[in-house]
C-alpha cells in the first residue's frame, strides 16, 4: 500500500507509503533491460498481435479516484498519478528511463530545459490534444497560473498535493510564452539545474485550453491571468472526484481532451476505469499494442492474489504477487518462481525508487535527548536485522539501506565509496551492548531494563539531558496489515530485549501512524514506522524534504547536514551536483538520523501472452507499449 500524505500536514511532497505490493511498471524506450523474469510454464508464441484488453490491478485500498491532475493532498496517490492521470495527460517532463529514475526525453512533452543564469527556457515538442489543438506554451502557463492562484499563503489549504511552501511556483518571479511552443521562466534565486528540473519542473502537467472554462461552455481566464483561475479550479475540481463523478468521466467534454495515449471511455462508482487508445496520440507507442486498458480496484492484496489464482472470471492481466505469498528465490538469483497455484503468469521484480526508514522523534521531550546521542543511534541500528528481514519476511525480495540515497537501483547520485563499504551496522547485539556500556549505561541482558548509571557529558557518561536512572524504554507505532513489517518490528523488539531495551510496539492504521508522526504533539510518539518515502514527483534524492528539520525525518536538524543539502540544491553542473550529493550522504550515513530499513520489491505478475517489457523504478506505466503475442 502506498499512501499520500494525509490531510493536515502540508510539508513535503514525496509520496509516503508502506510499500508492500505496489504495482506499477513501464516500458521505456531506452531501457536498460529487465530486472529479471521468472520462468513461465505454458508455451506462448512470439508473434505480436494488435488490439486486445489489458486489465491492471491497482494498489490495494488505493483506487483511481481523481482524474484532474491538479490533485489535492487527500487524493495525491500513486494510483491517481501513475496509473490514471499520466496515461491521459502527459506531464511536461517524464521521469523513469529503464531502471533509472531520471529524465526520459522521449516521453517528455518538451526538450530538456536550458538554463541561462536565472532564466529557464522550455521548448515544447509538436504534440497535439485529442481535439486537434496543439500543446502550447499557454497550456503550461495555465498550470503555473493555477498553482500560483491556489497555493497562496492566504488560501492555506492543500489544493495541489505536490506543493511545498517556498518552492515551485513561489520560487519563480516571471513566466511568459515567447511563441506558441517556447516558454521562459525567471527564477527567484540561483538554483541548481538538476534540482530545478527533477524536483520542480517535474510537477507540471500542461492543461488543455478546453479546460479553461468556468461552466460547461463558459470560457474562463486562467490561461491569461492568475485572477481568472479560482472559478476554473472550482469547476474542474467539482467535475473530477467520484463515485458520483467517475461515472461521468467517460465521454466528458472536459476529461476526454487528452494529449496522452489513453482516453477514459467509462468508469464505475467502484472506481473501475476503462480506457481506450487515443489514436491522436503524438508520442511513441509500440507498433502493435493493446487498445483497451482497465484499472481494476482491490481492497486487499489477498483479494487480488485470490483473483490472480482464479483466471476463470474477470481476469487480471497485470497484477502483483503479495510478498507473503512469494516463494523465496534460490540463492544468488534475483527472481524466484511463481507459487504453484499461479499459472499462466510471469513474475518480474521492480525495486521502486524510494527510501525506507523510520524516524526517531528528535523533538520528544523525554526520549529526544537519548535519540540525540550518536552512540545510541549506532547501538539501535545494530539491533536492526536488515539482512534477516530481507531473507525472512521479505522472502528475499528486499535491498538493505545504507544511507540517505538508495543503493538499488544504482544511480549517479550514490556515493561509490559508501556503496563499496556496504552496511556498517549489520545486526550485532554485542556491539550494541558495548556501545551502551561504554557510554554510561548499565546494560541488562537478563530481562531487566537498561538504565543510565553515569549522567553527564564526559566520556563514559550518558550525555546531555539524560539523568541517572533513565531507562531505555520506548514506544513504537507501526502500520497495521503489512506482514513483513509486522515481522520486522517483532524481530526488532526481540533483538532490543537482548540488551535491555524495552520497546512497546503498537500497530495502528497507516493513516493514524502517519498523521501522528507528522502532525502529533512532540510527546505523542517516540518511534513510528510507516514504510517508505517514494521520490515522486520530486525525483532527486536530495534531503531537503526529509532531513532539514522535517517531520518526515523526525525533525532531525543538524547545521552541517543542512549546509551540505543547500550545496546540492544550488549545484549548477551535473558533476558538482553528484559531488555534493556524495559529500552529503557520506556524512549523513554516519549520522544515522533515522533508522534505515530495507526497501521491499514490487512483484509484478503479467499474463504469459502479454508483453509488457522492462519496468520503471518510478512505477509509471506505459500500456501503449504492451501487446499480446500468439
Amino acid at each position, binding site marked *: 500500500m502506498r499512501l499520500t500524505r494525509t490531510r493536515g500536514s502540508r510539508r513535503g511532497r514525496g509520496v509516503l507509503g508502506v510499500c508492500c505490493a505496489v504495482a506499477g511498471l513501464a516500458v521505456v524506450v531506452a531501457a536498460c533491460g529487465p530486472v529479471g523474469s521468472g520462468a513461465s510454464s505454458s508455451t506462448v508464441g512470439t508473434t505480436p498481435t494488435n488490439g486486445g484488453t489489458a486489465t491492471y490491478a491497482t494498489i490495494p485500498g488505493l483506487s483511481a479516484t481523481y482524474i484532474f491532475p491538479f490533485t489535492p493532498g487527500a487524493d495525491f496517490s500513486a494510483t491517481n498519478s501513475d496509473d490514471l492521470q499520466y496515461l491521459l495527460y502527459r506531464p511536461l517532463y517524464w521521469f523513469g528511463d529503464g531502471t533509472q529514475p531520471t529524465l526520459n526525453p522521449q516521453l517528455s512533452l518538451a526538450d530538456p530545459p536550458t538554463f541561462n543564469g536565472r532564466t529557464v527556457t522550455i521548448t515544447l515538442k509538436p504534440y497535439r490534444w485529442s481535439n486537434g489543438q496543439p500543446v502550447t506554451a499557454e497550456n503550461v502557463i495555465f498550470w503555473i497560473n493555477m498553482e500560483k492562484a491556489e497555493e497562496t499563503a492566504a488560501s492555506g489549504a492543500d489544493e495541489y498535493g505536490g506543493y511545498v511552501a517556498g518552492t515551485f511556483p513561489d520560487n519563480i518571479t516571471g513566466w511568459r510564452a515567447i511563441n506558441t511552443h517556447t516558454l521562459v521562466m525567471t527564477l527567484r534565486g540561483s538554483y541548481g539545474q538538476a534540482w530545478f528540473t527533477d524536483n520542480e519542473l517535474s510537477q507540471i502537467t500542461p492543461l488543455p485550453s478546453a479546460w479553461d472554462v468556468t461552466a460547461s461552455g463558459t470560457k474562463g481566464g486562467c490561461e491569461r491571468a492568475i485572477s481568472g483561475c479560482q472559478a476554473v479550479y472550482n469547476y474542474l475540481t467539482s467535475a473530477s472526484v467520484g463515485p458520483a463523478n467517475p461515472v461521468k468521466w467517460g465521454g466528458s467534454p472536459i476529461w476526454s481532451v487528452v494529449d496522452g495515449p489513453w482516453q477514459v471511455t467509462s468508469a464505475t462508482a467502484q472506481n473501475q476505469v476503462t480506457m481506450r487508445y487515443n489514436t491522436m496520440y503524438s508520442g511513441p507507442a509500440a507498433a502493435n499494442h493493446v487498445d483497451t486498458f482497465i484499472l481494476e480496484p482491490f481492497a486487499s492484496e*489477498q483479494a487480488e*492474489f485470490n483473483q490472480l*489464482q482464479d483466471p476463470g472470471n474477470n481476469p487480471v492481466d497485470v497484477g502483483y504477487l503479495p510478498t*507473503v*505469498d512469494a*516463494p523465496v528465490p534460490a540463492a544468488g538469483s534475483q527472481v524466484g518462481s511463481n*507459487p504453484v*497455484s499461479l499459472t499462466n503468469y510471469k513474475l518480474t521484480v521492480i525495486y521502486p525508487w524510494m527510501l525506507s526508514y523510520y524516524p526517531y522523534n528528535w523533538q520528544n521531550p523525554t526520549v529526544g535527548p537519548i535519540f540525540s546521542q550518536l552512540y545510541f543511534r549506532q547501538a539501535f541500528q545494530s539491533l536492526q*536485522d536488515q539482512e*534477516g*528481514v530481507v*531473507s*525472512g*519476511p521479505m522472502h528475499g525480495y528486499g535491498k538493505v539501506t545504507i544511507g540517505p540515497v538508495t543503493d538499488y537501483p544504482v544511480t549517479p547520485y550514490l556515493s561509490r565509496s559508501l556503496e563499496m563499504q556496504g552496511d556498517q551496522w549489520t545486526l550485532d547485539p554485542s556491539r550494541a551492548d558495548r556501545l551502551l556500556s561504554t557510554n554510561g549505561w548499565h546494560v541488562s541482558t537478563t530481562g531487566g531494563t537498561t538504565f543510565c548509571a553515569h549522567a553527564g557529558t564526559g566520556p563514559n557518561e550518558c550525555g546531555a539531558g539524560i539523568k541517572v536512572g533513565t531507562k531505555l524504554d520506548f514506544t513504537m507505532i507501526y502500520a*497495521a*496489515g503489512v*506482514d513483513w513489517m*509486522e*515481522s520486522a518490528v*517483532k*524481530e526488532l*523488539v*526481540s*533483538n532490543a*530485549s537482548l540488551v535491555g531495551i524495552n520497546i*512497546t*510496539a*503498537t*500497530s*495502528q*492504521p497507516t493513516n*493514524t501512524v502517519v498523521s501522528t508522526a507528522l502532525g502529533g504533539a512532540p510527546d505523542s510518539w517516540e518511534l513510528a514506522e510507516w514504510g517508505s518515502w517514494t521520490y515522486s514527483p520530486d525525483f532527486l534524492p536530495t534531503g531537503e524534504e526529509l532531513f532539514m528539520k522535517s517531520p518526515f525525518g523526525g525533525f532531525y536538524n543538524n547545521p552541517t547536514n543542512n549546509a551540505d543539502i543547500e550545496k546540492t540544491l544550488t549545484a549548477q553542473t551535473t558533476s558538482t551536483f553528484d559531488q555534493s550529493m556524495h559529500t552529503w550522504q557520506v556524512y549523513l550515513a554516519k549520522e544515522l538520523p533515522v533508522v534505515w530499513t530495507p526497501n521491499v520489491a514490487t512483484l509484478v505478475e503479467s499474463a504469459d501472452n502479454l508483453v509488457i517489457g522492462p519496468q520503471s523504478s518510478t512505477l509509471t506505466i506505459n500500456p501503449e507499449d504492451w501487446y499480446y503475442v500468439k
Partner: protein
Amino acid sequence: MGSAAVAILVAMFAFCFLGPLVYHTDQVHVFFKFANLSPGAGHPLGTDADGDDELGRVMVGGQASLEVGIAAGLLAAFLGSLWGAASGYFGGVTDAVMMRIVDAGIAIPTIVVLLLIVTIYRPTEPVLVLVIAATSWLSTARLVRAEALALRTREYVQMVRVMGGASPRAVLRHIAPNALGTIAVNVSFQIGNAILILATLSYLGLGVQFPAVDWGNMIFSAVQTISSGYWWQIVSPGVAIMLVVVAFTMLGDALRDGLKSKSRGR
C-alpha cells in the same frame, strides 16, 4: 453433553496454563531461520512465520484467548445482569430509557465500536476485556430484564416493595439471584462469543499486541499465507479455538436444558 464440555475445558486449561511448565519454548524472541518449518522432530506442530514453535505458541496464545474471553464474558454478563435487573425492576420511564440505550447499543455494528475504541487505547489485555465487554453486555441486559419483568410480579418482590425496601438492595437481593440460572447460561455463551470477537479483532489487526499472542492473531497470520501450504499454522490454533468455543457453547446449552427440565419439574 455438559460433562463432555467440562472435560474439554479442563483439558484445554491444563494444556494452556500447565503445558508451558512441561513443554518449554521461547515465544518471545524471533528466529527467522527457523520460520515455517513443517511438523517434525523438535517441533511437533511445526513453526510459524517468525520461527516460533507452534505447539508452545498455541499454549501461550490460549492463555490470552481464555483470559480475555472469560474476563470479558463475566464482565459483560455482570454488567448486563445489573442493567437488565434494574431496568426490569423499576419499570416505567426508567425501564424505557434504559432499554432504549440497549437498543441503540445493539443497533451500532459492534465492529465499528471496537475499531474506534481500539484506535484510542493501545489494545492490552485489560483494554480488550473492557472493550469486548462494553459491546457484549447488551444482549444479557435484554435477557435479564425479561426475566426481571416476570419476577417483579412475584409475591416476595412485591412484599419488598410494599415494605419499602431499598430499591437497589431489592434488585441485588431478590431479582438477580432468581435470574441466576438465566445468567449462568448467558455467561457461558458470552465467553465463547468474546473469544470469537477477540479473534475477529485480530483479523482487523487490532487484537493483543506482541510479544503477547492469542489464537486469533495466530490464525490471522496463517490465513495470510494460506496458499503457501503451511496448513499446520492454521489447523493448530483453529482447532484449539473451535474446541473451546464449542465447549463453552455446549456447556451453556446443557445448563439451559437442565434449567428447563428443573422448571418443568416444578
